């Protein structure tokens, strides 16, 4: 390994260790302070998040390696400013999620003891079929997303430090799986907060060095005009209007259907935290997205002649060219942060779903002997489940498929098509009963997958639009047809 590579690796390792230590220390401290049950501590951090942590974990969970590597890479190499426009759609996500779902989930989850989105759905619809169906789907999509993130992270470290893919993977995968398994939700959100700060620092570093590297904007424009035709045009560089509009569904409003961000509504401590997080989150997302992607476009002007095996290599290569090596190492902590924050959140929620929503509810049930045994071993069980899921993802990541950007988006569309109407419709529609929810999830996901698989592209509209559209029609239709006597009284009391 070259000296530079060793420096980069060292910075990364220090960062990883710091995350692990801080995550574990804080989570143990909080655990001692809390008087809540194990489940509430491990899976939802005793509902103790304040505004800053809530903002950072929401943003960090949501922004993944796409925001730091694939997205800006695609901006610089292929789509130009249209990619930056697309990334801008996400600015609304923070305040949308917290403003619509935040307090509702907070209130209902306190009443019912829910620590997962499935827990909320159980209270709202009282349907075991729905809980099992959505949880299983969620697990499949989560594992897909985690693999995508791990791939991104490993490829990044491999590119930057020269170490083989599997070694690169081991380095950070081990750290994130361990602190998630042993530290639970609190470790996840605390490290998310660190990672959010690192992502901001990384963005400022990147923008700063890119601006220095391009000289002036006029020169940049001339170079870009020659290198990437249509770079400064919304529809001139590869995205059809239909696709562009679809992004407002996929990474805009559709975000309401993502359980890993929605669940954060169950974890904050008071309405003040929710409000602060809405503001902080919006500002942070805006800075990250606009900063990284705009600089991504400009950065192409620094290396106009180079070719890349895939757009995922663009950012790591450019960064090493324009930043002194120590700074580059620090910058590269940012996409690592994005990966770890996303994976840790998915991992803990997947574990919660298996342990609490599936195992406890359907395998242990109400048999007192089983319940007692379950509770005795709960902490060990939760830890083991978290570890096992982590290991499974790790193993699957060792033989990776292709580009991260799109794999991630597939899982995202699937989740949104499944959960959007049960969650959002559930808030408004008093005829939204369990039949409506189940039908909507099934039709939504099936429509999405059929449309995706068979490439049904009318006006180049993304499959998620069809998934959510047909999911919605199903929800309201089935509800109207089957909900004869209104919802049960206790559901109305708890959720409305």
């Amino acid at each position: 390994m070259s000296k530079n590579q060793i420096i980069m690796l060292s910075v990364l390792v220090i960062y990883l260790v710091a995350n692990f230590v801080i995550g574990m220390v804080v989570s143990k401290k909080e655990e001692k302070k809390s008087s809540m049950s194990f489940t509430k501590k491990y899976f939802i951090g005793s509902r103790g998040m304040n505004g800053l942590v809530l903002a950072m974990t929401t943003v960090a969970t949501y922004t993944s390696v796409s925001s730091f590597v694939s997205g800006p890479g695609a901006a610089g190499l292929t789509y130009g400013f249209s990619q930056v426009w697309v990334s801008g759609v996400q600015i609304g996500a923070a305040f949308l999620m917290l403003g619509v779902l935040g307090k509702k989930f907070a209130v209902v989850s306190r009443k019912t003891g829910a620590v997962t989105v499935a827990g909320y759905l159980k209270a709202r619809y009282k349907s075991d079929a729905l809980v099992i169906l959505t949880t299983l789907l969620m697990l499949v999509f989560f594992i897909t997303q985690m693999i995508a993130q791990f791939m991104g992270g490993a490829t990044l470290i491999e590119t930057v430090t020269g170490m083989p893919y599997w070694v690169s993977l081991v380095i950070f995968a081990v750290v994130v799986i361990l602190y998630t398994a042993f530290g639970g939700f609190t470790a996840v959100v605390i490290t998310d907060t660190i990672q959010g700060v690192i992502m901001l620092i990384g963005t400022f570093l990147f923008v700063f060095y890119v601006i220095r590297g391009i000289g002036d904007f006029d020169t940049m424009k001339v170079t870009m005009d020659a290198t990437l035709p249509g770079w400064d045009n919304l529809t001139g560089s590869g995205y059809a209007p239909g696709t562009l509009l679809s992004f407002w569904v996929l990474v805009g409003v559709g975000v309401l259907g993502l359980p890993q961000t929605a669940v954060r509504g169950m974890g904050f401590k008071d309405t003040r935290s929710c409000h602060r997080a809405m503001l902080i989150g919006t500002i942070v997302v805006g800075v990250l997205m606009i900063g990284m992607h705009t600089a991504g476009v400009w950065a192409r002007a620094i290396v106009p002649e180079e070719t890349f095996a895939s757009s995922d290599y663009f950012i790591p290569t450019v960064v090493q060219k324009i930043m002194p090596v120590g700074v580059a190492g620090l910058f590269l902590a940012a996409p690592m942060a994005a990966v770890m924050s996303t994976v840790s959140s998915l991992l803990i929620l997947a574990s919660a779903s298996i342990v609490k929503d599936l195992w406890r509810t359907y395998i242990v049930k109400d048999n007192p002997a089983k319940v007692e045994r379950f509770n005795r071993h709960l902490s060990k069980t939760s830890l083991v489940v978290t570890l096992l899921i982590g290991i499974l993802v790790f193993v699957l990541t060792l033989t990776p498929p292709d580009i991260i950007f799109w794999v991630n988006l597939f899982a995202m569309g699937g989740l949104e098509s499944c959960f959007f109407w049960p969650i959002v419709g559930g808030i408004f529609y008093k005829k939204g009963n369990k039949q409506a929810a189940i039908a909507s999830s099934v039709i939504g996901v099936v429509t999405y997958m059929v449309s995706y698989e068979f490439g049904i592209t009318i006006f180049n509209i993304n499959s998620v639009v069809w998934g959510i559209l047909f999911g919605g029609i199903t929800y309201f239709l089935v509800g109207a047809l089957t909900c004869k006597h209104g919802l049960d009284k206790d559901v109305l009391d708890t959720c409305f």
Partner: protein
Amino acid sequence: MKEKEVLKLTDEEKHKQMLKEIKATFVLILIVAAWHIGFGFGLNGIDIMILGMPLWFFVSTIGAFVISVVGVIILLKFVFVNFELGDEMDEESLSDIDNQTTSGKEVALDE
């Protein structure tokens, strides 16, 4: 940040207030979306650059960012309200001993 007092509301009042906030949030996102899409497509093609960014992008996306932040501040000041979220209802603490730490040691129950 301006601190509003924390209200004690009945369940019904809470849900009514939340519905108000939810609708207001949807209104804001629609405004942001309309701006972002409208100016993005509307100004596209005009060959003016501001600070290294095409005009359509600057107005649509930086504009959307500004509107989002200002919009959130307005929502928080005029629509959103602080209220107590409610007590934790522990569905399982009635019969179980799950006050454990992840190191497996049992902690004395506080109830």
